[in-house]
């Protein structure tokens, strides 16, 4: 395994403006392998903008994007996916009318080879066996125990199960970074626990997880480090074990002194 203390994904000095509005100001952010990095901040702090920059959905105006210390160019979601970065949006974007197997392979379905190679790719017969196996592998990897069958339509699943399927879709391709946007916002207690379990599983399997949430309870349960954003700037990085929820709330709402020792110790050098 690679060095666990070096950042796997890192951005340095990222700036992003929408017209006159400067949404991100010289933001440094990093996440290591096998780590859950929470991203918190009040509304309008720039969390979602940063997340979209990381996922390639927004292009940034200036700054560096590094994977394992190497400079990369990320201009589109496809670029991000090619670098192993996957995002699970809050609205999940699953097709309720398709079953779990179909959703997990959607957009890159395996097809049969041989004589069928003569047909254009989108008209070759689907390799249902491979699709089913792929789905089973993805579900087992995340230890989703409550799912009765992979041939159920996603529309009939519970919120937690849907979240699990969306995460499974993100990690079933060769991803190393998973960005989760408010994964528990719409869930009840037991389903939240189920999703947090999945996040731990991802962490154990060496994924870098970026976890956006407003729910401090979830964050303190699952995150290793916490990046705080305020008014477009990254103002602090804390180790979860060394801070209380009260201190975090103060940092989110009124900021921290710029030379705070916590921050310097924990930020990965750019």
């Amino acid at each position: 395994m690679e060095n666990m203390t070096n950042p796997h994904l890192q951005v340095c000095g990222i700036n992003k403006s929408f017209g006159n509005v400067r949404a991100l100001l010289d933001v440094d952010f990093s996440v290591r392998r096998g780590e859950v990095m929470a991203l918190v901040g009040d509304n309008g702090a720039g969390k979602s903008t940063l997340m979209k920059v990381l996922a390639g959905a927004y292009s940034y105006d200036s700054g560096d994007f590094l994977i394992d210390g190497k400079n990369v160019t990320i201009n589109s979601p496809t670029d991000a996916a090619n670098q192993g970065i996957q995002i699970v949006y809050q609205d999940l974007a699953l097709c309720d009318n398709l079953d779990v197997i179909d959703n997990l392979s959607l957009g890159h379905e395996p097809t049969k080879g041989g004589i069928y190679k003569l047909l254009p790719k989108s008209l070759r017969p689907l390799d249902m066996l491979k699709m089913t196996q792929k789905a089973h592998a993805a579900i087992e990897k995340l230890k989703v125990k409550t799912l009765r069958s992979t041939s159920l339509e996603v529309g009939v699943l519970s919120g937690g199960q849907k979240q699990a399927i969306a995460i499974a879709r993100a990690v079933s391709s060769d991803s190393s970074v998973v960005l989760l946007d408010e994964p528990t916002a719409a869930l009840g207690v037991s389903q939240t626990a189920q999703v947090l379990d999945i996040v731990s599983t991802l962490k154990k399997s060496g994924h870098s997880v970026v976890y956006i949430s407003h729910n401090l309870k979830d964050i303190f349960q699952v995150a290793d480090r916490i990046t705080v954003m305020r008014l477009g700037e990254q103002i602090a990085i804390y180790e979860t074990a060394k801070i209380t929820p009260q201190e975090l709330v103060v940092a989110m709402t009124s900021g921290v002194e710029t030379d705070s020792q916590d921050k310097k110790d924990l930020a990965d050098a750019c």
Partner: protein
Amino acid sequence: MLANSELKSKNIFANITQSKFSTFLPVALALIVIWLYFGLTTDAFFSARNFYYLFLQSTVVAVLAVGITIVLLLGHIDLSIAAVAGVGAAIMAVLVSQFGMSAPLACVIAIFTCILIGVVQGLLVAIIGIPSFVVTLAGLLGFQGVMLKILGNDGAINVRDSFIRGITTETLPTTTSWIILAFVILFMIYNAYINYKERAALSLEVESIFISTLRVSIVTLISITFVWVMNSYRGIPVAIVILLCLTLLFSYVTKNTPYGRALFAVGGNEESARRVGISIQKTTIYAFAIIGGVSALGGIIAASRYASVSYNAFSGNLLLDAIGAAVVGGTSLFGGRGSVWNAILGALVIGSLGNGLDLTGATTADKLMVSALILVSAVAIDAISRKKGKKV
């Protein structure tokens, strides 16, 4: 733990209604009820001759319904199918009767022209972003005009070419029908068996043997009855063979290919489809290209059936019958749900109502009102089942 108790509480009925195979049940039941009613109230309904003409009569609507199912799956609509069918038929008729072109070549040219029409409509929907309802409404008006222009002042061209006429007057030799049917059934059983074995070998979940057997038996029973009824009058018309091949092809495309998944995905959740990298624009343009070609095919079959191409034949009920057939067959107007085989059943429901009401001496007024009732019930079932799906 949850899994086991739920499995046990499911009885056989739930097993059937929850399998994907079951979507044809409502329309099949409707068809059986309609047939029983007319069978009991009129003498002529249950005769091989009547069924022969009923099926032949429903073929044009069925072809268009199968085609429009593709567009409906995508969550779009095409109101121009009947007009485009008319343009296709008119082009074919003019090429054959006025330019003396060979009929097969004229058919190919007509079909390609209509594919092009479909592509243009698809571009307007997918690239410019005009709602398909508006684009194809304009298409409906415009192509009726084009059809009139091609047909000239009389508004009709007679089609006496033997190749074209043969599509609806020639039939398959009875033994050929039986041999083809035997192969189809054997292939279906073989397929089900191989599928079962492969999945069992990899210890994946398999469809219960009861359901598989039931499915194969039902399809076998229906097709044997169909061939037997048709053969006891004049055999299976070429047009119906064309319809079945077309449906088989589209069934494969919609259910077993990445393009089919893209259709369902875009119709179900466009944003989701976009994020996984499906090109919404290409998927949409291809769908409209397909419906263009299918419309032309439907138009040619209609020209064969009536031995003429006339403005009236393509400007009347054809459009609404085709959309109605697809919807009665369980295809959702909201996108993402539907099946091409069910569209044939839907076309039979619409055709049987017309045929049966004719036999009972009903007026056009009665026919229109009954058709409206059937259509509204079908859409109501669709809307209710959508709500149910969301609630869980």
